[in-house]
């Protein structure tokens, strides 16, 4: 393996933290979804790197599976975003505070 596993893990860890910060700090729903996508891509990078390190294809297969799952998740999420935008005419998550107690 040309690139050592440690470097791959550091890069994907940084990507994951960047995505996590995006999820936690942004208030716009679309930006939060993009943050989650960045996190999932960091996972894919880790899987492919580890797969090359251990010399077995399972990790790459799981990375492919992960893309499919992420696509399905985003489909549902975007449908909900459209629904919320139509019914409440906002996608700022701080505005959704109808339930208290």
């Amino acid at each position, binding site marked *: 393996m040309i690139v050592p596993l*440690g470097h791959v893990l550091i890069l994907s860890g940084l990507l994951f933290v960047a995505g996590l910060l995006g999820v936690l700090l942004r208030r716009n729903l679309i930006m939060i979804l993009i943050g989650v996508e960045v996190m999932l891509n960091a*996972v894919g990078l*880790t*899987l492919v790197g*580890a797969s090359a390190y251990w010399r077995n294809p399972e*990790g790459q297969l799981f990375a492919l599976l992960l893309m499919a799952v992420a696509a399905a998740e985003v489909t549902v*999420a975007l449908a909900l975003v459209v629904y919320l935008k139509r019914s409440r005419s906002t996608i700022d998550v701080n505005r959704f505070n109808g339930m208290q107690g």
Partner: protein
Amino acid sequence: MIWDALLALLPFLILFIGSVSVLFVPERRALLFGVFCALLAAGFCWWPCAPVMSDLLLVSSGPFARGCLTVWALLGAATCLLSERYRESRRFASPEFAALVLFCVLGMSILAASTSLVSLFLGLEAMTLAFYVLIAFDRDNPTGAEAGLKYLLPGFLASALLAFGIALVYAATGTFTLQGNVSLPVGAAMHTIAILGWTLILCAIAFKSSLAPFHLWTPDVYQGAPAPVAGLLASGSKGAVFAVLLASIPLTLIAPMRPLLAALAALSMLAGTFAALPQTNLKRMLAYSSVVHMGYMVLAVLTGHQAGLEAGLFYLLSYGAATVAAFGLLASLTDSNGEPQNYAALEGLAGRSPWRAALLTLFLLSLAGFPPLAGFMGKFVLFSAALDAGYVWLVVLALFSSLVSCYYYLRPVVRLFRPSSSSVFSVVANGGELVVLGLCAIIIVTAGMYPGPFFRLIAAIAP
């Protein structure tokens, strides 16, 4: 070979084919068709099949997986039966609803049967994807979409954490199978990576099973979701997560995880108890109390071994039956104005519908752990197993929180039997609701008074 594999997967295939074909069933029969498919899958679980190499299929076909599948399928059938009223009064699109419930049951079954981290991820995602839609299903309810959003965002975060945790564990060990993963790799760097991975997986599981401090989404989601969906969410999804945690991932074998689990348990008991005290909405109260119950379940995970597993499964059964029944009772009181969630709306129910008031009292008392009901027996067995394993301070905390829980469970009960001036006519329960509520009441009373057969059954299916 291929027939053996297909036969081993038959219950999963029935659920999957059922969830697709229910979309072509007419509106009026769709929910009943969903019930039929779930019961069929539960029945075919016990069709004898040759043991198949589980690493070939990613899901086990052992008795534990089959027992879990039966329970989840029954829960799915109960959800469909309880939703019949919503189809009439809230204009639910019943084919889609039944399809999503079956898909959700499929996810839970894969989750509980998983032998690899890949199928664990897939099962959890299948279940969660169905729940995202189910929670926001009631379009007439203004809080439904908001509840969907409040489940979506933590759910997304949890699945990203779970995926990263799995990737780190794979990077450290080079395998996805659950059996090979519990022993930590040698070498300091790989050891740290594996511990980090398991911690992230535990965080994701805590999100899904709403353990404090990851429980903040729970009350809002329960309040906004339709009552049958909230019942399935509270019993089935949490039960499936804990079935994995109890049977397939012996996290307590990893010594550094133990203080983390103990902290989660203690925090859940305290935070849930104190947040439940001032509630005046039955669904929110049940949400916070479920956080406390999940804290007790972590106690079973910590206890480990056979004793912890059996006590945990029995507790899960008693908690699940009482929770589904409590939400189902709320569903049976729903009319076109919505669910009577507030204690004020439930006031004087004993005068309007005595048997429903009595049943709700029974379910709440079982959750609080009054003898001779199932909740008491579950707590007794669980706490004594944890005491034997040496978790004295956690058991003391659990006893304290279940003592305090009597207050918030009895508050709505007192309101039920108070005479009220309002002359609201309560709706009549239909046949499906009677069956579900009656079965749950029978399970709760029998498991409390005569728990022997239940323990024998659990010991027979335990891995």
